[in-house]
């Protein structure tokens, strides 16, 4: 490693260790574990698409209202 990398590595050892609480870690592990080897489910595709659709609709509505007020 370069001097910069060595020095940063040495300095970084002083940083506090960050970890998840056990309950959150178990929840995350459980959710992902059941998906091992499975294809991405339709819900995982559909959920973000629905959220985006909702956000875009709200933004469009806001824009229309702003334009109406400005006229």
């Amino acid at each position, binding site marked *: 490693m370069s001097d910069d*990398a060595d020095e940063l*590595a040495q300095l970084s050892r002083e940083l506090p260790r960050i970890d998840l609480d056990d309950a959150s870690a178990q929840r995350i*592990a459980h959710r992902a*574990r059941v998906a091992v080897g499975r294809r991405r489910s339709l819900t995982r595709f559909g959920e973000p698409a629905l959220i985006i659709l909702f956000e875009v609709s709200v933004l469009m509505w806001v824009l229309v209202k702003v334009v109406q007020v400005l006229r």
Partner: protein
Amino acid sequence: MRSAAVDPDERAWCDGLRRGETTAFDAVFAAYRRRLYGYLVRMTRRRDVAEDLLQETFMRLAEHAKQLAADTRLSAWLFTIAHRLVVSWARAQAVRAQLAGDLPRRDVPNSDRSPLEALCDSQAQLALERGFAALPEAYREVALLVGIEGLQPAEVAEILGIRADAVRQRLARARAQLAGLLGEHAPAAWRTA
């Protein structure tokens, strides 16, 4: 994310994941959860977001388990996914901020400690945590991946999709900026340089 020099543990985990074994997944989760979470917290500066992105990272691992190559370097693979998720999250944040009419940021500097800073039990540690947080994102990311995670500049280049030279350059700049930010808490060698 493939290489001839793969850690034997990682190779065994990869084989297990390709066979759909949940024990292999558990081993990978136990080995990388803290490292990935620390990286995500320090990149997003939010524990709730870091938790979501950690979950998404492991969901992607689970869903791609059967497509992993036998010689996949899991650390590089996982950090690549985490990096991409951070980039997407930061982009979404920027768009939201712009749509909100460039309102002033809520996180104006104040004397209170953030939850991350609350973990620090000395002034030097606090200065270091704040120093890392104050680095520009591109420099912070390289400093975290090389400094804390101990990844090689070539691996970091692969994760970030940039050249190894660019990684070394960012590393040198991160070190120089950190020296200035740390002031009296900087290592003695940095202060005399």
